[in-house]
């Protein structure tokens, strides 16, 4: 039984498919971004690029509480991570070179992708068809392209609905397009056919694809436990997360930790408290440094085992394998839930049970 069948979250996938529903020009499209699974270094770079900060705003009234504004460079960080991870995209159409040139020159249209209306040009049909036809007419064999690339271009031409572009494929298609454009250059406009397909994907799509990778959060404790009894186990603390990845929901991802010691709690509190203060700013500003490495270290120190995850369709065989393959973002959320939950579940915070006379 595969991980997909058993609803286990695969920790070592070959690639992550992020399906997106997007709208453009009054039409709805389904696209898919295929990403490399993020390594810990990718998440580290992402967190560093976020540059989290909290700005304190003056209170509205003299006796009021100050307001807070949370600042982060989400777009830049997402763009950087997407650029690191992306392998290929499906459901996009490369723009026709003339259309792209006109768009760039007039600035009236966006990226000019998914244009399926009949554009008067030398070749009839969709952009992919036209590109493929140009490929055929220019002859790829003599230009050092491998058969795989030609096949990719051919398959793109055959598939009129969804078009997949990987880096190699697009290089081939791009070269083919530029070859074709050279034969019939749009007069008065620069030739933009060499634009890389990565640059043509809208920023919002990239942000959404990256956001989909971070969809992991503590699960709401709405359902009663087994038998309704509180398990008195002092040797482990379970933390339940829920996640969504690749268009599927994983509602129960259990991380079992050993109870944290005072040293662990001190390390966590120190981590939360170590911030930078900005002097000279208009409003007091606190810079929050990257915390992922320390949180990952805490996770690795405390974790016992997990439930709901799979490595190559099998539950993790050993703790070392688990530590190696577990997503760093999941580690982060699990540790934050572990320590945050200890404080949040005090009797004062919990709703009072009604007594029955």
């Amino acid at each position: 039984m595969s991980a997909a069948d058993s609803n286990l979250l695969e920790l070592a996938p070959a690639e992550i498919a992020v399906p997106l529903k997007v709208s453009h020009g009054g039409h709805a499209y389904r696209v898919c971004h295929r990403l490399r699974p993020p390594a810990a270094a990718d998440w580290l770079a992402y967190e560093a690029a976020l540059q989290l900060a909290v700005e304190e705003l003056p209170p509205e009234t003299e006796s009021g509480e100050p307001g807070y504004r949370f600042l982060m460079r989400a777009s830049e960080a997402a763009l950087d991570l997407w650029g690191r991870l992306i392998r290929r995209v499906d459901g996009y159409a490369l723009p026709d070179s003339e259309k792209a040139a006109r768009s760039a020159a007039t600035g009236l249209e966006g990226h000019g992708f998914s244009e399926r209306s009949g554009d008067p040009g030398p070749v009839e049909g969709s952009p992919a068809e036209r590109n493929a036809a140009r490929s055929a007419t220019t002859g790829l064999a003599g230009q050092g392209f491998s058969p795989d690339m030609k096949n990719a271009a051919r398959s793109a031409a055959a598939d009129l609905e969804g078009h997949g572009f990987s880096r190699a494929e697009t290089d081939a298609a791009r070269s083919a397009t530029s070859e074709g454009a050279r034969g019939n250059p749009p007069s008065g406009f620069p030739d933009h056919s060499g634009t890389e397909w990565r640059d043509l994907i809208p920023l919002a799509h990239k942000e959404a694809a990256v956001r989909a990778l971070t969809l992991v959060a503590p699960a709401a404790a709405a359902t009663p436990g087994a038998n309704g009894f509180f398990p008195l186990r002092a040797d482990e603390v379970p933390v339940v997360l829920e996640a969504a990845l690749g268009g599927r929901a994983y509602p129960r991802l259990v991380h079992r930790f050993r109870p944290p010691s005072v040293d662990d709690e001190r390390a966590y509190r120190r981590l939360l408290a170590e911030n930078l203060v900005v002097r000279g700013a208009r409003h007091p500003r606190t810079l929050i440094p990257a915390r992922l490495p320390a949180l990952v270290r805490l996770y690795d120190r405390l974790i016992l085992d997990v439930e709901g995850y799979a490595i190559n369709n099998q539950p993790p065989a050993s703790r070392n394998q688990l530590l190696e393959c577990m997503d760093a973002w999941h580690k982060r959320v699990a540790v934050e839930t572990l320590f945050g939950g200890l404080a949040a579940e005090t009797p004062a915070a919990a709703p009072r049970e009604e007594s029955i006379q």
Partner: protein
Amino acid sequence: MTVSLPVAADCAGLERFAFELFCGAAEATPPDGRQTARLRAAAITPARLEDQLNRSADAAPPAIPLAYRLWLAHLLWLEEVLHTLDSRPAEVTAAELAGLQAVARARAQFLRAYEFCPRCQAPNRRGSARCRHCHSEY
């Protein structure tokens, strides 16, 4: 020009804000409900008393930047833990030690500026004629 520095390294700022934190906590001592009722019953000008009570209840919190508040919260927690548990000196970082010393200096400054009412133990500014909490004369 803006400069960012680790909050733990700013001992002078920590001492200043710790003192403000202690003073803010002392000034914001909630009035005793029974005492307030008695005051209301005996007030010559009830409107003025209400205004005064409301003003003390809505007193603006001390303006301590978030970064300092978080580090001070950690230091106060650490201080409590160190009093409770046996711990080796190596378990406290140099920044934490400097911070704990800054908090101790701020506390000493606070104790020089405030005295406690012998009757209700509420903190009052040194030199006050009567307790602002129970209104008893010193």
